[in-house]
């Protein structure tokens, strides 16, 4: 009997613990015991402020260099900073949960100003405008793109609702398998620029002429993937002159995006070309079911011969590729558009997401100050080069950088400076390699054409019927590319869109662009 009682008690206790554990919330990654502050006199005069930063980073735990950086920021700004880093795969869900429950960090990261949950949070007052706090934030002002501020004025009240996490605006070129080019005796010009016809020719050879020499038809010219929402888009938009919202050649609207233009065939031609390449097996047939991460795997494992990508990733890509195949070599190539121009659409509005201050922030000014410090010369030096003693040592007045690869999850992903593309160059990199990479990055920055919409979302595009309708675009685009629909069906959906929403959408967008262009 006693044994039964004991078993029942233990069983009940175990189940109770299990139930309690189910409800336990994963704790944020914290910086333990912030050390006493000894920062700048101006900052130490202010009382110490606690703040929590919620962001999406590659790891939920801070690395050693991350901890040291945060410690240096805390000392300089007299703050105690906690990080709340949900697993990146569930960040969106966790962010939604935080917004719904009101359990908010002082500042949270959003992926984009047109994110529906962000727009709702702004509308509901959960995210606060920060204009007044930016008055003294000279570094944030100086090192952000002007168009980033335009993109962050989302509420129609001309107020800014976020601190940019800037990225250098560029239009990247393509990584080619150089060993495949060599095998097929294809020469790339010294300036790394080829025409679009040459590009198509190379891709066809990569998919038809057995560049890996294994005697099998198992290679493809170009590696691509579905978008995060699983839709697929036409490839080579830069080369086909699709640069988003630009001044139109005439017609009802002053500004137009070929994607929404009933009178233009540019977008449908891009769809037709992608469909043709897909049918002929020139682009990876697995692309529509792959996510972005897999594209690199396919390239490195020798399935595809070309992918688009950032020139600064040379070392990482090369080393990973050589582990699979010692003959793996890389060439970085830019492709001119059909008119022979070196142009490419600048990605986004200089935002690689942004930091939004919430209504829960105990001292919004100090939150902004922390980000401003990170962009100051002192803060930026720590972010770029790390902390002395850990990331580098000073020998004979020269910095000697740690040779081991460092896990800079937070350190290199909190803020960036506009146009400072040297950020992407590892300070420990050899001069020879720098000379190889920097011209390519520079070219990617210089060739940009900006879309004039600045990621603005017209009010009608935030309405439920519009959001529901949007699915039709991704459906028809996918079907056309995989050969299950004619390109004319895109125009039918566009006509339907135009009747239901398009006129209001196009007018709102034109008014916005006009207003911004006239400000210049």
């Amino acid at each position, binding site marked *: 009997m006693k044994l*039964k*009682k004991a078993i*029942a*008690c233990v*069983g*009940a206790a175990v*189940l*109770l613990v*299990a*139930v309690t554990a*189910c*409800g336990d919330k994963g704790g944020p990654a914290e910086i333990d015991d912030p050390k006493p502050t000894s920062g700048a006199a101006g900052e130490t005069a202010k009382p110490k402020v606690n703040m929590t930063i919620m962001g999406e980073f590659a790891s939920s735990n801070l690395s050693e260099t991350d901890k040291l950086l945060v410690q240096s920021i805390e000392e300089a700004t007299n703050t105690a900073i906690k990080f709340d880093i949900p697993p990146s795969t569930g960040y*969106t*869900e966790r962010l*939604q949960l935080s*917004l*719904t429950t*009101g359990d908010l960090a002082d500042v949270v990261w959003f992926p984009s100003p047109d994110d*529906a*949950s962000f*727009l*709702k*949070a702004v509308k*509901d*007052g*959960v995210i606060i405008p920060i204009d007044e706090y930016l008055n003294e934030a000279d570094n944030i002002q100086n090192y952000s793109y002007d168009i980033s501020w335009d993109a962050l004025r989302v509420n129609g009240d001309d107020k800014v609702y976020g601190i940019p996490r800037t990225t250098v605006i560029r239009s990247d070129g393509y990584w080619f398998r150089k060993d495949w080019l060599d095998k097929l005796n294809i020469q790339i010009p010294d300036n790394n620029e080829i025409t679009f016809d040459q590009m198509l020719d190379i891709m066809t050879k990569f998919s038809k002429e057995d560049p890996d020499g294994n005697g099998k038809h*198992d290679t*493809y010219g170009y590696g691509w993937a*579905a978008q995060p*929402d*699983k*839709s*697929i888009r036409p490839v080579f938009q830069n080369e086909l002159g699709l640069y988003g919202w630009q001044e139109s050649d005439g017609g009802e609207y002053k500004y137009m995006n070929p994607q929404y233009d009933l009178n233009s065939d540019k977008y449908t031609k891009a769809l037709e070309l992608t469909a043709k390449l897909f049918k002929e097996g020139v682009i*990876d*047939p*697995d692309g*529509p*079911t792959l996510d972005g991460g897999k594209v690199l795997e396919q390239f490195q494992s020798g*399935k595809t011969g070309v992918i688009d990508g950032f020139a600064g990733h040379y070392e990482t890509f090369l080393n990973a590729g050589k582990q699979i195949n010692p003959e793996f070599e890389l060439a970085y190539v830019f492709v001119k558009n059909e008119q022979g121009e070196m142009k490419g659409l600048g990605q986004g509005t200089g935002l690689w997401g942004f930091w939004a201050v919430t*209504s829960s922030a105990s001292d919004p000014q100090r939150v902004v100050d922390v980000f401003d410090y990170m962009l100051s010369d002192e803060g930026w030096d720590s972010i770029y080069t790390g902390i002395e003693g850990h990331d580098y040592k000073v020998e004979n007045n020269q910095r000697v950088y740690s040779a081991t690869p460092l896990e800079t999850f937070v350190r290199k992903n909190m803020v960036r400076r506009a146009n400072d593309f040297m950020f992407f160059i590892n300070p420990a990199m050899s001069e020879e390699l720098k000379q190889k990479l920097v011209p390519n990055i520079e070219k990617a920055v210089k060739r940009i054409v900006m879309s004039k919409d600045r990621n603005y979302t017209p009010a009608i595009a935030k309405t*439920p019927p519009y*959001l*529901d309708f949007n*699915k039709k675009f*991704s*459906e028809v*685009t*996918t*079907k056309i590319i*995989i050969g*299950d629909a004619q390109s004319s069906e895109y125009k039918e959906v566009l006509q339907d869109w135009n009747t239901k929403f398009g006129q209001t959408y196009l007018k709102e967008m034109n008014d916005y662009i006009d207003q911004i262009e006239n400000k210049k």
Partner: protein
Amino acid sequence: MNNGKASSVWLYMRKNKWLYLLLIPGFLYLFIFKYVPMFGIIIAFQDFNLIKGITGSDWIGFENFRYLFQSDDFFMILRNSLVISFYQVLFGFPAPILLAILLNEIRSLLFKKFAQTVLYLPHFISWVVIAGIVINMLSPSSGWVNRLIVDFGGEPIHFLLKPEYFRTILISAEIWKELGWGTIIYLAALTTIDPSFYEAATIDGANRLQKIWYISLPSIASTIIIILILRVGSILDIGFEQIFLLYNPATYKVADVFETYTYRVGLLEGRLAFTAAVGLFKSVVGLIMIVLANRIARLFGKSLW
């Protein structure tokens, strides 16, 4: 009279107090995770505001439901949910029963245990991994299914981009994953059958199939009915992960179900109140279905309540 009844109940509870103690965590679980959150249903009738919260948001009556029923997508999603659910019941429900009966007939205990272990394993593999296996297996460039087709002179098929294959792929993957696990409850029911029934049938000259048909199946019929009623109650609960991981815009028209729709609309578009309305609609349909299924089962004398 009432006092006497109450005291007998009390005595019964005292006698079984350790069993009641074991019930507490289950009750707590249901109360905390199932009943308390039910309060949130009211946002389905609100223009939910993040700052004002559940208690302060403006009431909009049935506006979210009106939008749902008038939406172009509603009937497609309802149809997809019902069709996939029907296939799940048609093919997925009998499969573990058949397998349990087959396992029950195995005489070698060692082989039976080995087979059960192998069959249970897929249940513990996450959908992310299974979707990866399916995608690789059906890849038009490197999947073994397409290699086989090419070896026989055919052209590679983009299985995951073709609506006509989607349901078959989904249901097959689901059956493969849950088949073994689903047998547990039926195997447990089969072990309760008195062996003397089989002995008597053997003496009467019954063969294996006759014993299965006249003894095994009728003996576990109550279990089958209960599981079927519970399954019918969740007729609109298709499962999110497997569809989300395998579908794409090319297969939306056959694959988009309430779970994927609420994910896109609720989480990605931030329309939480509308999502709550969809959830409430699903629950009401589930309740109606479970009551109806029980009524039908009662006609055969096998009802749940």
